[in-house]
């Protein structure tokens, strides 16, 4: 009985918080379903983008004990690369080769993924590997890499904040519900997010690399002693994590554009997600991303027309504090995990 209750607690806390957020938002919308729906979709959209950064951060931390502070910078790089490929001028100009913006966008996303993966391999193999067993050095080093990446971005693309100009079909489509225009592109990103949440869960549950990752979270040395090249697994996981973050930046760019702020904004939010979800817990990261995304959207809506314009940006931390008060090791964290 006690164990059943204990097992259900994270889900109950999660349901309670989400219900609270939605109720508040519904009242805040004066009971207007259209308004409310827009807030919820915006929350899910932001939650999914956050998941693309937080999932990598969480799995890398669980497996390798590395909290990589460069992860937000990979998201940022993804946004710049996608922006650059999509638009005329810049480093790569594909407007002549692929005149159709609808076709250019997938290519822009692939470019973002490849650049993210490439920079991921370089960071893991070149810089992180010599520092395993030195956690503080890793923290400082990845933070430094993040700063360097921002500087490189400034050198290539200047400090301009780019907002997306080259609109493509999906981005221009809307559907109407409760008298409001909903963005099809946002819905599309939410759909991709859900597919990735389930896809990564299946990889972790069902595939050999998934078993290796889960075992490695428990005891890396023992995995190695069974004959598995754990360093190679580290490289693969780190690279995929960076690729997914850059992909996140790429699909976010049509909405959020490309700017330096993305690096810190998404890093801080993702760290909040990973901690409130329970360090190293995949379920916690997925649930935490959605909760934080929703909370930010609700706060953004509530802050309109008030003096609390800072509310949305401190919301992840407020939620983090609330959850750590309820469950000190995070939503899905086990009490004995450090």
């Amino acid at each position, binding site marked *: 009985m006690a164990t059943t209750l204990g097992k259900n607690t994270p889900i109950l806390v999660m349901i309670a918080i989400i219900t609270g957020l939605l109720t508040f938002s519904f009242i805040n919308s004066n009971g207007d379903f259209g308004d409310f729906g827009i807030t919820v979709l915006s929350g899910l959209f932001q939650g999914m983008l956050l998941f693309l950064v937080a999932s990598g951060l969480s799995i890398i931390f669980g497996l390798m004990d590395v909290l990589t502070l460069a992860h937000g910078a990979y998201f940022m790089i993804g946004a710049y690369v996608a922006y650059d490929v999509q638009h005329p001028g810049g480093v790569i100009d594909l407007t002549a080769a692929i005149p159709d913006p609808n076709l250019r966008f997938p290519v822009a996303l692939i470019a973002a993924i490849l650049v993210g993966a490439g920079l991921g391999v370089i960071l893991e193999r070149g810089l992180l590997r010599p520092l395993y067993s030195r956690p503080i050095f890793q923290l400082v080093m990845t933070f430094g890499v993040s700063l360097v990446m921002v500087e490189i971005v400034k050198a290539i693309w200047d400090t301009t904040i780019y907002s997306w100009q080259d609109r493509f079909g999906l981005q221009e489509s809307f559907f109407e519900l409760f008298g409001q225009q909903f963005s099809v592109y946002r819905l599309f990103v939410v759909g991709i997010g859900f597919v990735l949440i389930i896809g990564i869960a299946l990889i972790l549950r069902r595939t050999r690399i998934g078993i290796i990752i889960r075992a490695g979270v*428990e005891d890396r040395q*023992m995995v190695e002693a*069974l004959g598995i090249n754990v360093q190679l697994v580290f490289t693969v996981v780190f690279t995929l994590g960076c690729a997914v973050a850059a992909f996140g930046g790429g699909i976010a760019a049509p909405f959020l554009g490309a700017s330096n702020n993305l690096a810190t904004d998404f890093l801080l939010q993702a760290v909040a997600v990973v901690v409130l979800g329970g360090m190293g817990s995949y379920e916690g990261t997925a649930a935490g991303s959605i909760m934080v995304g929703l909370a930010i959207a609700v706060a953004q809506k509530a802050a309109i027309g008030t003096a609390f314009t800072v509310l949305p940006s401190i919301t992840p931390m407020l939620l983090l504090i609330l959850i750590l008060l309820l469950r000190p090791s995070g939503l899905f964290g086990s009490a004995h995990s450090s």
Partner: protein
Amino acid sequence: MSAPVLEIRNIHTFIGQFHILEGVNVSVPQGSITVMLGRNGAGKTTTLKSVMGLTPPSQGAILFEGKPIHGKRPYHIAQLGIGYVPEHRAIFKTLTVRENLELAERQAHDLEKRIDFIFNLFPAMRQFYHYPAGNLSGGQQQMLAIARVLVPENRLLLIDEPSEGLAPVIIEELMAAIQKLAETSTVLLVEQNFRMASRLADRYVILDDGQSRVEGVMPELIKDEQLIQRYLGVA
């Protein structure tokens, strides 16, 4: 006597700045069960970890089937055909029994080929196949840790204190299993339980203070009460 499967030649191992092994020599002949004896803290576990490359020796040599393996990475050493059953049965508690075994595969279908043998040896593994290994009893966890090294083809098994903290009935079952394994693999066993060690092993080596002191055949050690008293503190 046939050539040794494992030969540890005068190894020195440091953990951090601590000089833990200060000259360990062990020779494990083909087809034997060799037991490593010695008090708590003598360096038995560190010796096995040094063989696996988990605490690599800074001096000396380790030869597996005549070829040097010191300095290689642990996964590489394991892949050569060495199975390691660590002390405190380091199984993966959140993984199911099946996943624990799958993890040990080195080639596709390793598990499929060996699963009947494993189920016969340890029927509990069949019963709990799809349950998290953390739900198993201590004895069953030890059986899983041993079953794990039976999945791939291992010619040498390093088993660290399998009887630790287990009830006598379970120990009997484990002894029978280890005896069965020794029919096909060479075994280097660490065992504090002298009764168990003396019944299982053909050969012994005694470690004390990070050094190997004596090695020989088991029947001689059993007769030598003075030696037992001196290094093991049991009569």
